[in-house]
């Protein structure tokens, strides 16, 4: 299992670097939008007593931790895929980073666009279910389309890419958001750019680090 330990070490470093970059981007771009949207929310009585990180270093610290750890998790998926296919180097890494961006951000966002706090949505579990199904279908679809040479697997892959969007994401009967529409659109654009930068960087770093080790 020394190979596993090497994958973990590579992913930890790539994830922390990628997560740090993402946190800096978010701090200057999307956090101001989240804070602005929260001004439109009135805290409900049942939530007001729950612990929350204090605005400032504590809140930003938890976001940094979240980004670093999710970066670690995503980097594990990238480095394991490259390890299995005997690939290394930042160019392959960029390819896997792009795949990750499509699987975990673009495809789910086509149905459930990134939301600011205070947006009325369908029931949480149904959205989480659709999100997971979409990510899984997109991952399998891309594999079938790109990593295989058999025509029937490629057709199956392409169908899997489209399937979640034919089914459609769960949406509330009446859509309602507290924050202005303009703020919401701005948020979608910025998260799309930030996550693209994050995924490509994560892939490139993981790919580059894979060159440093021998399996």
């Amino acid at each position, binding site marked *: 299992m020394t190979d596993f330990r090497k*994958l973990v070490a590579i992913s930890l470093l790539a994830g922390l670097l990628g997560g740090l970059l993402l946190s800096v981007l978010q701090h200057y771009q*999307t956090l101001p939008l989240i804070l602005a949207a929260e001004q439109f929310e009135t805290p409900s009585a049942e939530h007001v007593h729950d*612990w929350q990180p204090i605005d400032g270093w504590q809140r930003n610290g*938890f976001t940094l931790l979240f980004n670093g750890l999710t970066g*670690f*998790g995503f980097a594990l998926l990238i480095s*394991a*895929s490259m390890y299995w296919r005997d690939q290394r180097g930042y160019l392959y890494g960029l390819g896997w980073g792009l795949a990750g961006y499509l699987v975990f*951000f673009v495809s789910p966002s086509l149905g*459930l666009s990134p939301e600011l706090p205070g947006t009325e949505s369908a029931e949480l579990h149904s959205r989480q279910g659709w999100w997971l199904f979409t990510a899984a279908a997109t991952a399998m679809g891309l594999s079938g389309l790109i990593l295989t040479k058999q025509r029937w697997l490629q057709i199956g892959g392409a169908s899997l890419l489209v399937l979640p969007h034919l089914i459609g994401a769960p949406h509330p009967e009446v859509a309602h958001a507290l924050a202005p529409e303009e703020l919401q659109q701005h948020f979608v654009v910025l998260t799309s750019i930030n996550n693209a930068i994050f995924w490509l960087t994560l892939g490139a770093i993981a790919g580059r680090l894979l060159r440093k080790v021998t399996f």
Partner: protein
Amino acid sequence: MKTLTASTAISSAKILPGLCAIVLGLTVVLGLGFLQDSNNYLHNAAHDGRHSAAFPCH
């Protein structure tokens, strides 16, 4: 020694380490992105990250 000839096949020694990495990666990502605790501690700590990564939140 067993050798695999197909170029797309994964050598058998590589299956387990890669699988462990995938399982660990998915556990970390899905745990951080999706778990809801009754006290909302995890949700509130992960709040801004979840919104910005387009995980369904709230």
